[in-house]
């Protein structure tokens, strides 16, 4: 059952966050209300292309970086 899923600790953009083991990056983005077309995801130092976000799952201690384009010169 969903409710029994293991809680894990991950780091997202430098902030500690608890998540469920096996949660996909796609779901993480949705939880964060981020549009995957606007964001690039790096998972444990490896870029995850958009089609692979659904397949890529979080594990204990994972590090996720979510980046986008901001104003700069």
């Amino acid at each position, binding site marked *: 059952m969903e409710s029994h899923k293991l809680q894990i600790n991950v780091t997202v*953009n430098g902030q500690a966050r608890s998540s469920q083991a096996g949660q996909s990056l796609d779901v993480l983005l949705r939880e*964060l209300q981020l549009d995957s077309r606007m964001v690039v995801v790096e998972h444990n130092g490896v870029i995850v292309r958009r089609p692979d976000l659904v397949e890529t799952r979080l594990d204990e201690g994972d590090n996720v970086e979510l980046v986008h384009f901001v104003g700069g010169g």
Partner: protein
Amino acid sequence: MWVEGNEVLTNALEIGGRSFQSRLMVGTGKYADNPTMVQAIEASGAQIVTVAVRRVNLDRSQDENILHHLSPDKFFLLANTAGCYNADEAVRYARLAREAGFNEFVKLEVIGDQKTLMPDVVGLVEATKVLVTEGFQVMAYTNDDVVTALRLEDAGCAAVMPLASPIGSGLGLLNPYNIRTIKHRLSLPIIVDAGVGTASDACVTMEQGVDGILMNTAIAAASNPVAMAGAMKLAVEAGRLAFMSGPMPRKEVAKPSSPTKGMLDQT
């Protein structure tokens, strides 16, 4: 740019296999607000617009994303690696930027010193080599040293971007000789990046024969950024056109503009 007559004056700027009409490129940082930024960029006539790669702010993410303000259909988004202090870091940012899916171009910055924001040329050449292998079109922000510029050309850059003066200083073109030398010795497009402070700086820079200018603070930090963007558009075009027109020689001798013949007899 110059539509009447002479074809040689109207040529587009070619970088990395793409063609651009405007020789003025602008940054998107440091504006008081986004509407001002959008208006200024439109007034500048720029096609190439630089953006930075940064973490999504998880608390109030919406407004920061530049794509909410500038359409990638309308502008060519050139991601930079600003804030990176070594080759590996810059390569990482470049890869993330490309993954955003707009283009394979990157304005490569490898900063060597926090106080002056001058580039680390060793790291810059190193990162260039990696990125070129991966198919990037690298536009390398560098200092005004011709030897480094030659190494960047050898490393496969799409364009070399020497500075006029330090980023954000507005000191203008401190060493026209070095910029001219880089332009003469390289075959690549030369885009002067950083240091322009006002319109005449942009104009005199283009008169050195370079292919374009990238600026940010000179527009964003003017009292009236939108009007200054318009001034910069005109100044870049003026400088380019003057360069192509072959200015008169300067000489320490006066010469009348009106005829010396045909004067009346003294009464």
